[in-house]
């Protein structure tokens, strides 16, 4: 269906206000139903047996004793999940990750699963499953994995993107290069060059709700899945593909979601739960423990990145280059490629070159984490830019403004930019009172920019006008950050009715057309576009119904301010008809009134942010504390400003944790040492100051209201902003994330000794 998505300036009544979120009361009173809150009659409990080895060949699995245990109803292994992926490497990686086939690729990799009448029986059965492993050498560190004598994670891995292709396997899965100009010539023109190597450790999204589902397979081939996910239509497709189910026979309902941030964008245990249910003939509930979430869901990459930036004394950057190595777990992804694309995207560079290498390691399968791969790249580039400013003797914001990308700039990843917002965020930072506020003892200030691609995608929405004139809005993008409130505001705006008269729900896969998942900052961007389209279609129906009620031609009826109006001198004295009045007569004017929309919401436009951070460091202990933090980002149009601010604050909070404390710690045996929130330290409220936000509204030309996605970009600058703040506080350049107290202390001690 064609839909004109072009931006048109208008005054808003509902959009831009801050009503209470419709899901709020249920969430704060415990009534909201998350993944583990659903139950079915006769439901079994599933538990998963996981590899204790970082790398091991599975010689055999004997389930005989476990199957004989009282209360055990089904056991599955890879043999129950045959390979139906038909050469699709990405899908095969998901399958192999759900259940190891020939090798356990990391500590925590699933090797078998049990469904039993209760958890006690399921756990007892796990102990009776006999797995004969041949333990293999493993590699955990991203740099060690590139050594010529490193153990091979996958001995069939030949580096892609190389010409000529290598003849021998390695742990380097892919090479991707971006850039333009001549960096060697550019560096020759530079008066000052900064060149450094950096590392970032692996972090987890840290969503509070573990993966959880209830699966029920029926004997007629139909099946149901209740699940915590960012995309129930995607989960339906994943499960149907992996289990050989007909898509229409698998009905997936998304629960409320206690965080995903990219980690719930493809299946983990859900096909296993369905396979167990299919085998047992009963519903199966499978809930991951926190330890399992850390060991066996999808954290982000650990990285090792070399950056070189050269500039003239006046601050003009003459050349920039980066080599980025991203660990992707045991399966190839495009994480290094995304890092290579985003690293210098904030800048207008005549000569730039980035090369990304995708590195296989014996860690969990890397998955998206909020603006995936961009925060690490930004940390390194923005650190180098900051150091460059120091060496030149130029203000860090001014140096960035001087080199900022603008409309017409060829981006470092290829295309020429249209209108973009990096300049306004930098100007806003320069003018912000935070930048000129005095600093206290042992405090440092840092700032940094960040870039992320946003995108849209396939979207389908139903808008039903009920008999009393209220409206039910059924959408297919999971609400991860308040989108039901935002979409209700959009529907209210378009229809001209009250926000409280709209009820937005997330429809299941059997009741609405396909929707891509909520990722890429697309939830509100895409579904608001489809909601506007659906509302306009409903208005068209109501206009015709009003014409019938008045018994006048439809062309003599127009819609304004939530009412049908009769036009012209002939009918102009008729009182306008409200939505409620038209809805009340629907049964006699043609039946139910609805608007439907299906579209692809392309044109999301790229996104930029600038962050400012003040940090205080205790030089005796290396302990640090963020004392002030400001986020400046373009929202296009903030539909519900509170939730835009929430996204900005949430991204900053996650970035602060990543920068200062969070890290996967492995032992020499390749086992994860800190799979729990006591030892994997995410920030809590008492760790953080109130995070200030400044919303810029530069309309997106490709959305009717000018809306941009806002969910991801806010996690891109914090690593760099904090690293710059700490470096400025202690006088030592910090190059290893997380900048935890031991690392700060070590840097201070090294400096003192030297």
């Amino acid at each position, binding site marked *: 269906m064609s839909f004109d998505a072009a931006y048109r300036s208008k005054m808003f009544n509902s959009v831009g206000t801050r009503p209470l979120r419709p899901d709020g009361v249920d969430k704060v009173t415990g009534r909201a139903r998350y993944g583990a809150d659903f139950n079915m009659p006769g439901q079994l409990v599933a538990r998963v047996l996981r590899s204790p080895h970082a790398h091991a060949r599975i010689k055999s699995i004997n389930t005989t004793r476990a199957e004989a245990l009282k209360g055990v109803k089904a056991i599955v292994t890879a043999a129950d999940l045959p390979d139906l992926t038909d050469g699709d490497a990405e899908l095969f990686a998901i399958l192999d990750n759900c259940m190891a086939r020939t090798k356990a690729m990391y500590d925590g990799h699933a090797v078998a699963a049990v469904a039993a009448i209760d958890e006690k029986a399921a756990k007892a059965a796990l102990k009776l499953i006999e797995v004969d492993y041949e333990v293999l050498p493993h590699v955990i560190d991203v740099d060690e994995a590139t050594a010529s004598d490193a153990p091979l994670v996958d001995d069939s891995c030949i580096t892609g993107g190389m*010409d000529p292709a290598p003849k021998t396997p390695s742990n380097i899965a*892919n090479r991707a290069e971006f850039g333009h100009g001549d960096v060697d010539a550019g560096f020759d023109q530079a008066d000052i060059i900064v060149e450094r190597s950096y590392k970032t450790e692996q972090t987890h999204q840290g969503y509070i709700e573990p993966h959880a589902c209830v699966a029920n397979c029926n004997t007629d081939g139909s099946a149901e899945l209740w699940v915590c996910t960012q995309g129930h239509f995607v989960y339906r497709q994943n499960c149907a593909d992996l289990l050989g189910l007909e898509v229409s026979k698998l009905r997936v309902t998304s629960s409320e979601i206690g965080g995903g941030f990219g980690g719930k964008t493809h299946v983990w245990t859900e096909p296993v739960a369905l396979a167990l249910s299919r085998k047992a003939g009963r519903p199966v509930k499978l809930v991951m423990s926190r330890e399992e979430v850390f060991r066996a869901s999808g954290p982000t990459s650990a990285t090792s990145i070399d950056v070189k930036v050269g500039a003239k004394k006046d601050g003009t950057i003459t050349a920039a280059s980066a080599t980025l190595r991203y660990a992707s777990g045991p399966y190839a992804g495009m994480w290094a490629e995304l890092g290579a694309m985003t690293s210098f995207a904030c800048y207008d560079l005549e000569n730039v070159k980035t090369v990304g290498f995708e590195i296989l390691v014996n860690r969990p399968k890397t998955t998206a*984490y909020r603006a995936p791969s961009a925060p690490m790249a930004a940390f390194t580039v923005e650190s180098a830019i900051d150091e460059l400013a120091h060496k030149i003797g130029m203000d860090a914001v001014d140096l960035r403004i001087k080199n900022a990308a603008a409309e017409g700039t060829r981006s470092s*990843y290829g295309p020429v930019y249209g209108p973009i917002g990096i300049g306004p965020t930098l100007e806003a930072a320069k003018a912000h009172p935070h930048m000129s506020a005095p600093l206290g003892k042992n405090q440092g200030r840092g700032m940094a920019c960040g870039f992320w691609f946003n995108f849209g995608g396939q979207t389908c929405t139903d808008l039903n006008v009920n008999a009393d004139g209220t409206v039910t809005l059924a959408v297919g993008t999971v609400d991860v950050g308040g989108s039901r409130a935002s979409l209700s505001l959009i529907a209210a705006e378009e229809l001209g009715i009250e926000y409280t008269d709209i009820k937005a729900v997330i429809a299941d896969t059997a009741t609405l057309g396909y929707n891509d998942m909520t990722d890429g900052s697309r939830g509100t961007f895409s579904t608001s576009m489809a909601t506007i389209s659906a509302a306009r279609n409903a208005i068209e129906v109501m206009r015709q119904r009003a014409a019938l009620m008045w018994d006048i031609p439809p062309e003599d009826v127009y819609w304004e301010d939530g009412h049908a109006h009769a036009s012209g001198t002939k009918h102009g004295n008729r009182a306008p008809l409200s939505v409620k009045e038209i809805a009340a007569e629907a049964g006699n004017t043609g039946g139910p009134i609805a608007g439907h929309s299906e579209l692809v919401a*392309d044109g999301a436009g790229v996104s930029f942010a600038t962050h400012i951070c003040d940090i205080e460091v205790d030089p005796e202990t290396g302990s640090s504390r963020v004392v002030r933090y400001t986020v400046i980002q373009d929202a296009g149009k903030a539909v519900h400003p509170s939730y835009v601010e929430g996204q900005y604050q949430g991204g900053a909070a996650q970035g602060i944790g990543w920068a200062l404390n969070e890290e996967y710690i492995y032992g020499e045996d390749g086992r994860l040492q800190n799979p729990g929130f006591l030892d994997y330290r995410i920030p809590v409220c008492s760790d953080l100051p109130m995070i200030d936000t400044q919303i810029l509204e530069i309309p997106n030309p490709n959305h009717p209201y000018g809306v941009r996605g806002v969910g991801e970009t806010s996690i891109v600058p914090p690593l760099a902003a904090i690293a710059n703040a700490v470096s400025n506080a202690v006088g030592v350049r910090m190059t290893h994330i997380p900048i935890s107290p031991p690392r700060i202390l070590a840097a201070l001690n090294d400096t003192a000794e030297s």
Partner: protein
Amino acid sequence: MVDVTLWAGLRPLADNQKVVRVEARTIRELLRKLEERYPGLRGPFRGEVAVAVDGVIYRNDWSKELPEGAEVILMRRLSGG
């Protein structure tokens, strides 16, 4: 007529060319003609490609019209969080 820049991974599938000139009015026509000329592109064109047209990235809207002389760059389809 537009000049289409291919990402590095596509070039071996298109006679090692970085830029290919194509007569096409829409993204759909562009991809079809490229695939006809270089059948090896069929695989990547099924779910792995995005198309930047004058700086705006399209992942789904293959009906997007290509202005004469537009800058067109084929990119790998991005992942998000």
